[in-house]
């Protein structure tokens, strides 16, 4: 049995190819999660403003992204953008762009929810002691909203990481696709190949996502005490 495992992972460059695939997965996840957090806070605050134009704009954006399956967005930006407008983006930039657009919309909605759920007297008390609106946001609303945000943000982050395998539909060889290529060529000789390869991929995703949810638990406990 050990033979069947070593023959898969040690033959040729299989192991380093899987690691290269993992790097692609991580690169897309890390960049788009960080950008989404940052942009999501800005868009989320815009959604709580009183400016009607701003409200309508962010609303249209949120609804469009929300109803569109990720795969459709990927195809739209990879194929249609080039076919119709002649804008030819690389597959990797399309992947990061789409995941950021999606993450930003979801993040913005989380931020909006956290901010508007803040009791009104908080803001009024701030005004009463003479703080400006931006000071109220910075010192009163945001610090409290952040705590309410954590569970949703962690959920969003792991969801984004787990959705990255979709990128192989626009020809980006991520971890799962590389695994599939290895299974296809070793599968004829070794029937256990798919079990070991997908088993390893499961383990890798677990190692990435589990610490993130532990971290959220840690933060929640720390703030409670």
């Amino acid at each position, binding site marked *: 049995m050990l033979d069947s495992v070593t023959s898969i992972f040690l033959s040729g*460059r*299989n192991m380093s190819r899987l690691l290269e695939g993992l790097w692609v997965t991580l690169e897309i996840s890390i960049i788009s999660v960080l950008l989404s957090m940052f942009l999501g806070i800005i868009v989320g605050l815009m959604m709580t403003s009183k400016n009607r134009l701003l409200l*309508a704009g962010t609303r249209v954006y949120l*609804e469009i992204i929300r109803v569109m399956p990720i795969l459709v967005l990927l195809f739209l930006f990879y194929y249609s953008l080039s*076919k119709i*407008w002649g804008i030819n983006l690389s597959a990797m930039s399309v992947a990061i762009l789409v995941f950021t657009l999606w993450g930003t919309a979801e993040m913005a909605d989380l931020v909006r929810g956290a901010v508007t759920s803040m009791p009104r007297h908080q803001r009024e008390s701030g005004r009463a002691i003479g703080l400006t609106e931006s000071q109220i946001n910075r010192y009163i609303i945001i610090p409290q909203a952040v705590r309410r945000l954590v569970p949703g943000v962690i959920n969003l982050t792991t969801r984004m990481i787990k959705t990255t395998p979709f990128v192989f*539909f626009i020809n980006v060889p991520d971890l799962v696709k590389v695994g599939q290529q290895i299974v296809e*060529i070793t599968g004829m000789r070794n029937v256990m190949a798919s079990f070991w390869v997908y088993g390893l991929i499961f383990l890798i995703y677990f190692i990435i996502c589990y610490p993130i949810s532990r971290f959220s638990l840690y933060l929640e406990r720390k703030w409670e005490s």
Partner: protein
Amino acid sequence: MKSMIKTFFAGAAIFVALVAFAPEVKAAGELDKIKEADKIRIAVFSDKPPFGYVDENGDNQGYDVYLARRIAKDLLGDENKVEFVLVEAASRIEVLQADKADLVLANFTVTPDRAEQVDFAKPYMKVALGIASPEDAPITDVAQLAGKKLIVNKGTTADSYFSKNHPEVELIKYDQNTEAFNSLRDGRGVGLAHDNTLIFAWVRENPGFVTSIDFLGSLDTIAPAVKKGNKELLDWLNAEIEQLYKEKFFNEAYDATLKPVYGDSVDPETVVVDGEIAQ
């Protein structure tokens, strides 16, 4: 509800406006563009051995890839000046239309529907039906099948060929290749009909079965495809392939990539294209 409808119309209006003002995308001087970039982008499969796959060293291999490297060598002087775009079967037309690849070499069977969306060059391979059956009770003639059970995959060429031309044969249909082949092993039919290229590889791995008919039905060809209207590259390809027929290059490609999988028992002429069929 009202605001949702408003949102929807606003979104739709923006989308329509963007499409309406789209600039014309033009394709000119395609060969020069490739030479300027000093590499040709060729779409191949990454998980369909032995036609296009990635080996354990991470290199692209297979019959399609063998031709791809030769094209790069003849066009740009170096067989490594090719950038492989790894495609799925469903995106083979899109990669050309969206200019993500200059050329598709991904076991692309020529059909009238596809020919309306892309331009096919001269073929480099052919595919027909084959029948696999047990060694001790081989089906060597379609007449033997009358009133017997034949295994096929739903919606394949084998399915339509027998339904149309041989209604006397009783068909058992499956969705998946694995199911179909397993049922042949279990003896649920006297034989199995599928693309001969697939039958050859399966029989090699399964002792006790033979390819009892290796060429049947209408002949389909597999050819390189370029973006519709890319005449410059198409003309170059046709001249190139014409030259490769003369050199017997496709026999060489067969020996290097398909023979190890199919074994010696298969006649290369059932797969390889030479000059005659191209007309």
